[in-house]
Structures are given as structure tokens and as C-alpha cells.
């Protein structure tokens, strides 16, 4: 456990000392959302109708943009090799890195999402479900993304490849995330969708670290 905490604080410290990354992800998210009123027109009814989908798709792309830095810096400077020799299992280390990634992308995105929802005239009744869905869904993005990031370490044009691998696997999160947020905004029950999101989180929490660790091991061979 102490190894987990040590790695988590190391990653968080690195993220905050380098500064730019978190701000960049949030700025990308905000800017991309703000593009939509210009793209589809400022009609409040239309914006309210598509708000949940816009927020989710952009949050997904913002998370995707930040995935590359999950293992890449450590892989480049060789610290990943040193980490793999630690007594802490690689699976636990992957989990620590995912938690750090979520705290520096998923959580800030979730915090700023209600503000952007306001700009898009999202129905007030949908806010609790939107936030709950983002809290449940964004960790899944980090966990599934870790598999893709580990698989593409050292690949040519890794960024494009990463999106090709990861985006299809993100579709379930997107479907249930949007369904939960929209159901609440329309006054329907959002609980079943939230439960399915929680199931996705539980499943990926249990399985994704194994797959990502296996991918890291073969990258280090």
C-alpha cells in the first residue's frame, strides 16, 4: 500500500510541478464545448437538447489527449524500467498511475462540466445525474485508456494509433453516460444508467490494470 501511495504522490507531484498539463486539458475541454454554439447556432432549445452529448464527447476527447503522458515520459527516461523492478506488483502501479491520471484529468473535467452545461442551457434537473455520471464514467476512461497507452508505447505515430484503439472501447461509457444525464434532464429515471456505469467502473477497475500491466511488461522486454 505504501508503494501505491508513494507512486501516486510522485505522479501527482510531477503533474503539478510541470503545471501545464492539467490546465491544458481543462482549457481544451472548455474551448471545444464553446465551439458548439458557433457550429450549430445559439438556439437555447437546440443547445439544451445536445448539451449532454456534447459534454460527454468533448470530455472523452480531452481525456484521450492526456493519455499519452500516462506512461510515455517514464518510458522515455527509463524510470518505467526501474519501477518494474520494484517489489510492488506492476498491476498496483498501473492502478496508482490511473488514479493520478484521473485526479489530474477526470476530476477537473467533472468540476468544470456544470459550468459548461450552464453555457449550453442544460436543464437544471439534469445536473446531479450529469455530475454523478461523470464521476463514475471518467475513471473508466482513465483505466481503459491505460491499456491503450501501454500498448502503443514506442509506436510510430502513437497518438493517432491510441485513438483508434481506445475510442471504440469508450463507446459504452459514452452511451450510458449520455443516457443517464439526458434521462434526468427529461425527468426520467437515471438510476439504471448510473448503475450500468458503476458496473463498467467495477469491471474495468478489476480487469484493466492486468491488461495494461501485461502490455507494459511486453513493452519493457
Amino acid at each position, binding site marked *: 500500500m505504501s508503494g501505491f501511495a508513494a507512486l501516486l504522490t510522485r505522479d501527482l507531484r510531477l503533474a503539478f510541478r510541470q503545471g501545464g498539463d492539467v490546465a491544458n486539458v481543462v482549457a481544451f475541454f472548455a474551448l471545444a464545448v464553446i465551439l458548439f454554439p458557433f457550429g450549430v447556432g445559439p438556439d437555447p432549445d437546440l443547445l439544451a437538447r445536445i448539451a449532454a452529448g456534447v459534454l460527454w464527447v468533448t470530455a472523452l476527447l480531452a481525456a484521450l489527449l492526456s493519455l499519452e503522458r500516462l506512461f510515455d515520459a517514464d518510458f522515455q527516461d527509463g524510470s518505467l524500467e526501474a519501477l518494474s523492478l520494484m517489489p510492488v506488483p506492476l498491476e498496483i502501479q498501473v492502478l496508482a498511475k490511473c488514479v493520478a491520471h484521473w485526479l489530474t484529468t477526470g476530476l477537473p473535467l467533472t468540476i468544470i462540466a456544470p459550468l459548461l452545461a450552464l453555457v449550453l442551457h442544460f436543464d437544471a434537473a439534469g445536473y446531479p445525474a450529469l455530475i454523478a455520471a461523470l464521476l463514475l464514467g471518467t475513471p473508466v476512461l482513465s483505466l481503459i485508456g491505460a*491499456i491503450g497507452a501501454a*500498448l*502503443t508505447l*514506442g*509506436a*510510430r*505515430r*502513437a497518438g493517432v*494509433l491510441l485513438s*483508434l*484503439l481506445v*475510442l*471504440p*472501447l469508450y*463507446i*459504452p461509457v459514452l452511451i450510458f453516460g449520455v443516457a443517464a444525464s439526458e434521462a434526468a434532464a427529461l425527468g426520467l429515471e437515471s438510476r439504471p444508467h448510473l448503475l450500468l456505469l458503476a458496473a463498467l467502473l467495477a469491471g474495468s477497475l478489476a480487469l484493466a490494470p492486468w*491488461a495494461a500491466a*501485461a*502490455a507494459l511488461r*511486453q*513493452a519493457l*522486454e
Partner: protein
Amino acid sequence: MQRFANPARFMRLSAALLPWCSAAAAVLIAIGLYGALFIAPPDYQQGEAVKIMYVHVPSAWLASLVYAVMAVASAVALIWRHPVAHIAAESAAPIGAGFTFVCLVSGSLWGEPMWGTWWVWDARLTSVLVLFFLYLGFIALTNAFDDRARGSRAAAILAIVGVVNLPIIKFSVDWWNTLHQKDSVFLFSKSTIAPSMLWPMLVMAAGFLFLFAVLLMLRMRTALLRAKLRALRFGT
């Protein structure tokens, strides 16, 4: 298992099997097509358009089956460091992508007259589309590294991760009640499709299966020969 890790043994075995499998594929697909187009009755509602089923359903089955074959081959390759299994998985991927593409296109052509639309965001259609992208991702990942062995191993892990999509495809029509119809052919209980329509479809499916075996063996032989050529030329 290890006996088949020897490429020379595989080359001998596949050379012996290829003519028989090719003949079986040709004969079965010919019988299946004749049965489908001339013997099987038109549907009472869909008319002759139902004949798209005889290509659509077998290619859909094969799309999932090839993925399963690819995932098992990938697991074997990773666990036993089995070189021929890597080649099998990599050779199967474009074939599977092809079957998935045929399934999507024929389904789209069938959907237009029957549902009145080329495409709906139905759970079955979406999950098969994801399957198609998984195949593409596998192929891209295989070729993304300067070190070929690294690409093979990374793609093998991706193939195993993607297996989660197979049960979703299978049960999507039961979990979500949308436009795509439920299964009507069953292994262990009576199928809900008329026998006169069922047999040409099963013959076609068997023909597609042999076609897959033929294409897989051809592609694997080519890959092995190419590897040998590379080794001769560059000494690696």
C-alpha cells in the same frame, strides 16, 4: 500444441489440406447459393429481399468466430511464445475485418428496403461496428512498431482485451429491444426459422467456414514464406 510451432510442419500440413478445403468451400458455397436463390421460398413479407440473409447471417457468424479464433491464437502466442500462433492471429485479422465489412454492408442493403433506413444506432449494429474497429486497431497496432515482434505481442494483448465485445454482440439483441431482430437459429433448441430457409443458410455458413480456413492457410503460408525470404536476404 508445441508440435505446430514448427513452421515446416505447418507448411506440409497446410499444403495437404489446402486443395480439400478449397474444394469443400467451392462446392458448399455453390450448393448454398443455388439453394438460397432457387430452392428456398421467398419470405411472405419480405419477398425476394430475404435472400440477402444467406450472405448476411453467415458472414456475421464468421465475423465473431474469426475474432474468437484470433483471440485464442493470440493467447496461445503470448502464453507459449508460439511463433506460428502469432502469424495465425495476424493472418486472421484482415479476413475477419472482411467478413465484418460484408456483414455490415449486406445488413445495410437489407435494412434499406425492410426498415426503410441504411443504418440505425441499434445495439447489434453498433457492437458489430466496434468489432470492425477492433480488427482495424489490431492490424494498425501490428504494423506500428519498427520491431515486428513487439507489434505482434502488443496486438495480441489488444485482441484478448477486445473479447469483451463478443458477448455484447451475441446478447445485444436480448438486452436492448431495438430494430435488429432476435436470434432465430439455435444450437440446443428448435430454431424459429423455416427448415426450407435454414438449410441453405447452414450450407452457406459451412462454405464460409471452409473459405475462412482456405484464406487463413494461404495468408499464413505467405507470411511464413515472406519471413523466410527476409531471413535469407537480411540474415535476421
